[in-house]
Structure formats: C-alpha cells, structure tokens
C-alpha cells in the first residue's frame, strides 16, 4: 500500500516537472528526457511487485492529462514498457549494469513504438521515418543516463519502504 501512496504523491509531481521544468533542458528540442518513463522503469526494476505495475497506470494517467493525446495512450505505452522491466528483473541480475542499460533501452523503444502506434491508430498524422532519429536517438541515451542516476536512490527507497520478500 505504501508503494501506491508514494506513486500517488510522486508521479503527479514528476509529470508536472516533465511538463514545466524539463522543456528548459531540451536545448531547442534537441534532446528529450522522459522522467516519468525512467522513474516507472527504474521502480519496476528495483521492486518488481504487482503494485509497481500500478505506477505505470498512475504515471500514464498523469502524462495523458498533461498531453494533447487521447487518455489511455501513455497508460498503455507505459504499462507495456514497465512490463519489460518487471519481467527483466530478478534477485540476481537486477543490479547488473548490463541489465539496467538493456531495460532502459528496451523499455524506451517499446514505449515510443507503442505510443506512436496508438497515435497513428487514433488518427494522428505520424511520420514513421522520423521516429528513429527524432525520438529514439535523442531520448534513449539520456534515458539510460538518468536511469543510472536514479536506480541507487530508488533501490534505497525500495529497501526502506518494504520488507524484501524471499523467492524460493
């Protein structure tokens, strides 16, 4: 339950920061940092719990309410991406840097692909040729970097708020 309360307090704030603060760091739209995506992926990696998947639902709802897209677009994309992190994590490998980088890259790619697909499905004019350069290449390196910075405090928080279950 504490997991959900933290999500309800943290994710609206992060979505607002993504909308208000991060545009100042976009260097004329040259890079794009997806704070909510990175936080949700990181949390699912350090704490692969059922409740952690609900982070994607809460984060997606907040993202959609601050976006011109249809409600449900970010929710679906974010849950799909967080499932990758959730499945990719295990007690042994979740702290390995290769897994972290892989999850950040795979999660970002899946998020953008699903989001773009849903935009196209709901009638938005979409240019698939610009997707790799305009979004993936400009976002993924910064998402990976941010994830590396966020994971240690996320792990610390996960250990603080919950007792670690032992999987046998």
């Amino acid at each position: 339950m504490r997991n959900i309360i933290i999500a309800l307090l943290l994710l609206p704030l992060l979505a607002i920061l993504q909308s208000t603060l991060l545009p100042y760091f976009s260097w004329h739209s040259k890079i794009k940092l997806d704070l909510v995506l990175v936080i949700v992926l990181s949390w699912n990696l350090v704490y692969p719990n059922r409740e952690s998947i609900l982070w994607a639902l809460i984060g997606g709802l907040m993202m959609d309410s601050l976006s011109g897209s249809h409600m449900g677009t970010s929710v679906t994309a974010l849950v799909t991406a967080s499932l990758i992190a959730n499945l990719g994590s295990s007690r042994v490998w979740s702290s390995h840097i290769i897994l972290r980088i892989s999850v950040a890259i795979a999660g970002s790619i899946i998020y953008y692909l699903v989001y773009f697909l849903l935009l196209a499905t709901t009638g938005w004019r979409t240019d698939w040729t610009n997707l790799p350069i305009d979004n993936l290449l400009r976002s993924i390196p910064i998402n990976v970097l941010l994830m590396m910075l966020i994971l240690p405090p996320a792990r610390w928080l996960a250990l603080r708020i919950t007792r670690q279950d032992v999987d046998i």
Partner: protein
Amino acid sequence: MYQNKLQRNVILSATIIGIGILLLSLSYRGSLNQFKGLISTMITPLQVHIYSIVEPLFTYEQRAPEELVNLNATLTTENAILRSENIRLNETIYERDMLAALLNYTQLDNVHTYLTANVIGKDTSSFLQYIIINIGTTGGVQRDMPVVTHAGLVGIINEATPRASKVLLLNSDQMAINVKVQNSRAHGVLFGQASKDMRLRYILLDATIKSGDLVVTSGLGGSLPANILVGEIASVRSRAYDVFQEAEVLPLVDLDGIEIVMIITDFTPTDLNPLLSTPIPDDL
C-alpha cells in the same frame, strides 16, 4: 513461487493494458472529457505553483517591478492590436482597389478582443506540439479559439478544462491553416511538420512569391480570422513540371520560448459541416 509472481504481474499488466485501450476508445469518442477535466482541475494549481517557482530560475532577465510588468502587458496587448490594425490597413488598400466598383461592401472588422494567459507547461510527449495555459473555460476560453502573441499566430485552443487549456501549436503536424502571401495575394495551405518547421503548399505556379514575404491567415474555411500574421517565407521551391509551388515558412513567434499568449475571444469559428452535408439535387 517466482514463476507465479511473474505470471501474476503479467496478468495484471495485461489487465491494465486492456484498461488503457478502453480509456483510449472512450477518449476517442469524447466520453472522457469530464474525467480529463477533473484530473486537470486537481493538478493545475500544483502546476501553476511549480511553474511560478521554476520559471524565474530560467528567466535570466532581471525581474522588473510589478508596475512595469503590468505596463509591459498593456503595451504588448496594444502592440498586438496595432499590428493587427496595420495588417488590416494593408489589406484594406488591396481590397479598396479590388472592390472600389462594388457597392454595399462591408469591411470586416479585424480588431479583436484579447485575453492574456501564461504558459504553464508543455506537452509531456515528444511527439506532440502543445502548450498548456493557465486559463480555461471559467475564464472564458473555448475550444477552437485562436491564440496569438504580439508577433503573430501561436495556434488554436484544442482542449479547454475549467482552469487550464491546451493549445495546439501552428507548427504541429496536426495543423493545416489556410493562408495567403501578403505581397502576391497567393493563397495556399500551411502545414506543420514532424520536424517542427512549416511548409506552404498548393500555391499556383504563376504566383510570384519570394523569401521574406509575409504569410497571413486568409480566413478561408472559417476556422481562423483573416489577416493574422503567421510567418515569413524562408525559401521557395518552384519547378516547371510541378502543379503547384511550395515554400518553407518560419513562424514569427518563438514557439519554443513562448511564455505569455493572448487568446482571441471574440471570434467564433464557422462550422462548415452543415454546408458540406447538403444533399446534391437529383437533377444536377
């Protein structure tokens, strides 16, 4: 046990994806406007508060006293009205020449009433070009109202909740505006693009357009008032074997650094749908 946990997580994810698709479907039909408005109403005060903290940190100019800020807002509005008036006068000269022989011509009044709003956020998605402003339906903003600055057109209100509104920017690839080139009177359609620049299309080959020409709204289609400054032609592509010529247009408004906008509140877009759906008589 680990496998069971994994299985439960997958089932939960699939359920939430199902919920997401259901939300998407309902939103597509317009059934979730109230829900979206409710969330927006809850988070807008926090967004305004955070913006008021964040914005001064990244605004390098020295903060002016409040009187100067208010004076600046008044002058900015006056400037917008004067620019609009200037365009109207230029248009009047052209129209006078064209319509001098006609009687009972009614000149459209192009002086608008404005509502000033602060930009409090941008779209959270990198695929979409929206800004969020701090005035909504309770402040008199409605969907489809044009949004401008003293420099020219910014976009249109795409969604209005009680306390905030979303503005679709003119360089969005969802945007298509009927425009004319002021010098040559050539009409065309201005499209936003994913690369965030704008392309002017469907200009007849015999029209003379060149770099530096100003592009203004034509008013055709009734979705925007006529004669709002939109941009400046940067380059022209004209080939003899093409049906139309094209031009690259740069917006006159700095759409990345925009902080204050004005909403034209006295313009009602014309709904052409009833005309389009008029049945064609059988004898035609």
